[in-house]
């Protein structure tokens, strides 16, 4: 099969690396490989119908800052320039209007390509429209990497907990906020903790999406639509960020043996992101940049999963599971 990687930042590069490393696995499982026939970043693209050399792409990106020599006016021109089966859409998330990611996914589905994405924006804003489009074209649109990075949650609910009613999911879905709140547990004020998160590379220069709870809200929407069958968008989420949390609140929580964590909660009726008081030792009191989710199920009771919530290679692991899912269906294992 042939894949086109749209977006060649940290995640795109990691996906390319993982695909290159897993060639033997693909051969053993399917009797054929998964070729990367196209790669595109914000300024350039590269294609080869016989498969690109991933090492060359990575080296070029490192040396010159661009993935290819060819330039494009519109992304669809690059997508049209080579035949492929799966679009791996990992451009930057835009939660205002879905950005180029939304257009790329729509374009690929309309042209009968399967899509794997880690881009939250399009799914948080236009989930139903995209899934309908995928159904109409008999294509897969898979998105394990959009929620919780390496932490399996979408496929866990879809496969391992299939048939069971999921009563609720609540969890830590933003590692940046969790890092900041963990630092505040040790006495650092919010501003210093945020600055440290930026210096460590956990927070963006503009941390609004993280600290105002917008990033977590996107994930909550994706879970609500994909697992609870709801039809909601980003604007339906009741969002409270962490910017007003002060040292006094942390101290009062601590005096009651609790911590404050930014929790996303979704059920058939709830759709919320808010700071919550969590007893120490509770699965949701997790420190650092980890993500965690507590899934309350019909028969199995509560199930807790956790994992590294961001990062190139971790998100690539989620994308790999979706690629295998598609290849299992298209080729058979």
């Amino acid at each position, binding site marked *: 099969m042939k894949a086109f990687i749209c977006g060649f930042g940290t995640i795109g590069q990691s996906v390319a690396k993982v695909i290159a490393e897993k060639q033997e696995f693909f051969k053993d499982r399917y009797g054929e490989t998964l070729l990367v026939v196209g790669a595109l970043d914000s300024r350039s693209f590269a294609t080869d119908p016989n498969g690109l050399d991933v090492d060359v792409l990575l080296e070029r990106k490192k040396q010159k800052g661009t993935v290819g020599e060819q330039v494009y006016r519109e992304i669809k021109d690059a997508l049209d320039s080579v035949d492929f089966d799966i679009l791996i859409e990992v451009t930057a998330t835009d939660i205002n209007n879905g950005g180029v990611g939304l257009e790329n996914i729509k374009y690929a589905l309309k042209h009968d390509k399967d899509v794997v994405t880690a881009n939250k924006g399009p799914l948080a804003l236009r989930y139903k429209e995209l899934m309908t489009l995928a159904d109409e074209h008999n294509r897969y649109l898979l998105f394990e990497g959009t929620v919780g990075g390496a932490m399996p949650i979408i496929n866990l609910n879809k496969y391992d907990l299939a048939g069971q009613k999921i009563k609720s999911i609540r969890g830590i879905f933003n590692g940046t906020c969790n890092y900041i709140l963990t630092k505040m547990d040790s006495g650092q004020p919010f501003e210093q903790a945020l600055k440290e998160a930026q210096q460590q590379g956990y927070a963006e220069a503009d941390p609004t999406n993280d600290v105002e709870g917008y990033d977590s809200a996107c994930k909550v929407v994706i879970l609500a639509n994909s697992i609870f069958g709801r039809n909601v968008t980003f604007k339906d989420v009741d969002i409270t960020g962490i910017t*007003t949390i*002060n040292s006094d609140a942390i101290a*009062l929580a601590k005096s009651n043996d609790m911590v404050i964590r930014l*929790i996303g909660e979704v059920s058939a009726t709830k759709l919320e992101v808010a*700071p*919550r*008081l*969590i007893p120490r030792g509770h699965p*949701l009191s997790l420190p650092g940049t980890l993500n965690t989710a507590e899934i309350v199920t019909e028969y199995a009771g509560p199930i807790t999963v956790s994992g590294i919530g961001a990062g190139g290679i971790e998100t690539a692991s989620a994308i790999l599971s979706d690629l295998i899912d598609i290849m299992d269906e298209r080729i058979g294992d």
Partner: protein
Amino acid sequence: MIVNAELFVNDLPGQLIGSLEPISMVEGNILGVVHNREKIIDHRICVNVTFEVDDKRLERLKELWQAKDIVISNLGSVHETYNMDYILIGDINAAYIDSLLRKISEATTLDEINVRHSSKSIKTASHTSLISVKARYEENLDKIDAILRKECKQANVTYIRGV
């Protein structure tokens, strides 16, 4: 409700079972039984039983025991309580918290309520308060949540609740 009962039954075969049957008849759920043979008064043996029962059926249960010549020495209830903590952050003072608590008291019954205020934050004008409540029914917590959510939104106060 959960009830602890101390009963005295005649020291005859089948009396222990006879003392438990009425609990089943009122659809109670027996949580524990101790046949206290060391405690005998007037040829009757002590039975301590803990059970869960709809409080409306307790009177009927007493009648059933009395009809079986079972002496009720002690009957006490234990209530399960639900705890919840809330932190409020914003331009709030003791009067504001009092008004919130008044609204909560008007809407629901609480077993216990504790409020702690922080000293005013040095850099900002905001106060922080921790409200801890104990309620007899889980629905009461939902009512408190609804009140605090609405009031805090109106006053632009950050509201953090437990899980």
